[in-house]
């Protein structure tokens, strides 16, 4: 029997998975847009984005627009690969479950 794959724990968290999936469909996105789409609080969202950043899955650019701070997030190549691997593993696990 083939060995079942492990799911990447960094991606497996629901909010982090939602964030990576959102960023997969866009070139870059503001913190406020990610917050609106996930319905998360500032603190939780910031913490989860930090984890993704530490894992090298997202990159952040902080700047000021009209004197207001703005954080722009984009998915890195490593993040894209990790998400693809996660999807493959998920499909394999679901295939095994059927």
């Amino acid at each position, binding site marked *: 029997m083939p060995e079942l794959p492990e799911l990447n724990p960094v991606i497996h968290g629901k909010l982090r998975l939602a964030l990576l*999936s959102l960023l997969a469909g866009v*070139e870059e996105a503001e913190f406020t847009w990610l917050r609106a789409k996930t319905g998360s609080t500032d603190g939780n969202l910031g913490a989860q984005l930090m984890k993704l950043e530490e894992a090298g899955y997202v990159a952040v650019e902080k700047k000021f627009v009209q004197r207001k701070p703005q954080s722009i997030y984009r998915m890195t190549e490593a993040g894209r690969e990790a998400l693809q691997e996660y999807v493959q593993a998920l499909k394999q696990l679901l295939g095994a479950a059927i």
Partner: protein
Amino acid sequence: MNANAEEMDLRERLDLMQKMIAEGRRKQESWGWTFVLWGIAYYVAFFWDWLASFPLAWPITMAAGGVLTFIGFSRRKYRAPETTIGRAIASIWIATGVSMFILFDAMGFGMHMGEARVFFAAASAMIGLANAACSLTLKWKAEFLCAIVWWAAAIVACFCNLVTAGVAFLAAIFICQIVFGAYMMVLESRQRRQVARHA
């Protein structure tokens, strides 16, 4: 966690991913309000021009529509993220709007408009073109139906009398701007509720 619960959890995650990826790619549904706004603007200009015979009714209303659209976008809580498709759709509508504004103003001031049917035919064909280009970009059949309605209005303007052409133009505005815009707004709020449930 038993096997069934685990499978459900995995399926939920797959579903969440699909919803979020679609949310990121979603673009034109969030423009539903602009369709309704421009539909109302066309009606205002049409009746202002027809009832008061004011030659600047169209340019003034269209400029006001442009300003209101700009204000509407700038007052949004967040800037929509950049996507290639998003840029393509925005380009199509901006280019169409600017072309129509320049062409019809030039034709009007240059006294080349002749009769209103020329305007109905050209405007309908141009808006039909923008709808068709967007629908092909987004692979969205519902919007292609709008393009067909606009093109039908353009044909009616060429072959029927002024009253019939005017009615066809007003009907196209109602179906393709107001009804379709409201449909887009309903779609957007439904998708927003779904995403909130899954996130």
